[in-house]
């Protein structure tokens, strides 16, 4: 039997729809962020496909009648070729636990699972390197806190949260979400956080990684407007945090801001309380939800600042952010006006 392989880019609407139909026929929903699919056809009928989204391989599926190592491995050869050609060598993939072995034979290693329904694998040992690097920053104490933040952009609300955490902890590790999928770039977000917290002494600010709220561990976080909350991915992200990252730093607490407005973040907070405390080999982590500070009767949040930017109301942003953030916003807005 011979299969014909081809690539389907997002721009070819008719063929894209055929891939969607095929995925549906094997009970998979097409992920929205796939850029390119590799499909295998037999007599002009799709029998297998796999998608590439950033450095993540997903929606890998085979026709029931042809499931055997042969076609799976041919498909993976083609898919890896495409990924490498795009310059993406360090790859992740999502699959069902049943297929772990198939992908191990393609050079992928198991990282973590969620719900016994989905597993995350990678084709490098990078998580081990990352863990080793983290260990250098370990501080021992009764309360070692952690915070994960995107800060799009850094506001006085974020600052309040970090201050509170630092007061209650011996040491605090702050992780900045690294994925460049927000209005403000990672570089700007990271700089504003460092500048805005320079006076806190028991704090380490870490650049995030692929293993902490990234498109690999938590793809739905970056599709917020869809209001998609996939509890599978929140669990995956939290399991990695608990089992792989937190033990390296001896983290005992995780601080989060109360989230009355954003559904994704709120759901994440609630799940976090449950998951980080349940029995496991790794020690439990206590989740502390901190209230938000308000200004003018409304909580200070990054989304509020972005909305004010859209409406060109610079003077109203002033009381919500530290001077460093304000300076950047003022420059951005004057550039926008000059256009």
């Amino acid at each position: 039997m011979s299969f014909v392989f081809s690539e389907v880019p997002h721009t070819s609407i008719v063929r894209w729809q055929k891939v969607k139909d095929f995925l549906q026929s094997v009970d998979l929903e097409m992920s929205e962020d796939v850029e390119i699919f590799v499909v295998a056809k037999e007599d002009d009928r799709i029998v297998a496909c796999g998608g590439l989204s950033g450095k993540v391989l997903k929606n890998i599926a085979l026709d029931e009648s042809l499931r055997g190592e042969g076609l799976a491995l041919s498909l993976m050869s083609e898919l890896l070729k495409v990924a490498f050609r795009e310059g993406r060598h360090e790859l992740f993939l999502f699959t069902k636990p049943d297929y772990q072995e198939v992908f191990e034979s393609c050079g992928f290693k198991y990282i973590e699972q969620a719900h016994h329904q989905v597993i995350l694998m990678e084709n490098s040992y990078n998580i081990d390197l990352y863990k080793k690097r983290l260990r250098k920053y370990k501080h021992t104490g009764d309360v070692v806190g952690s915070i994960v933040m995107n800060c799009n952009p850094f506001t006085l609300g974020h600052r309040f949260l970090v201050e509170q955490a630092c007061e209650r902890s011996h040491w605090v590790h702050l992780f900045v979400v690294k994925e460049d999928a927000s209005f403000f770039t990672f570089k700007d977000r990271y700089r504003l956080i460092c500048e805005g917290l320079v006076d806190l002494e028991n704090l380490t600010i870490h650049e995030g990684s692929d293993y902490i709220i990234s498109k690999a561990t938590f793809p739905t976080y970056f599709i917020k407007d869809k209001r998609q909350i996939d509890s599978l991915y929140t669990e995956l992200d939290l399991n990695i945090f608990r089992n792989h990252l937190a033990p390296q730093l001896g983290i005992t607490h995780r601080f989060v801001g109360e989230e009355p407005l954003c559904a994704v973040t709120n759901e994440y907070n609630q799940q976090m309380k449950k998951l980080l405390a349940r029995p496991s080999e790794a020690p439990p982590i206590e989740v502390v939800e901190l209230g938000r500070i308000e200004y003018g009767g409304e909580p200070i949040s990054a989304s509020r600042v972005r909305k004010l930017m859209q409406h060109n109301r610079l003077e109203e942003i002033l009381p919500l952010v530290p001077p460093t953030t304000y300076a950047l916003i003022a420059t951005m807005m004057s550039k926008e006006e000059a256009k």
Partner: protein
Amino acid sequence: MSKKLETAHAGTLESSDAFVRVIPVDAKGIEIELESSVEEIYGDAIRARVLETATAMSVEGVKIIVQDKGALDYVIKARVQTAILRALGEAEPDWSVL
């Protein structure tokens, strides 16, 4: 002599073939990572062949990852050579060292 390398690959994951990746690393020497369907019997022989091939081409500071699906040894050698050539960005091999 050691030459500057980029990440490259050669081969497929299909039966009787090998999928070889060459990755530059911040370390001396040649690191080999093998996963083979015939590891039990031929694992050491395959490792030796990969090392011999890479050494002959005088590369250093690389990790060579081989997913072997029962390839014959000259197939493995050819795949490793091709992957290294691609990593070096060279089109023509130096036939005298092969």
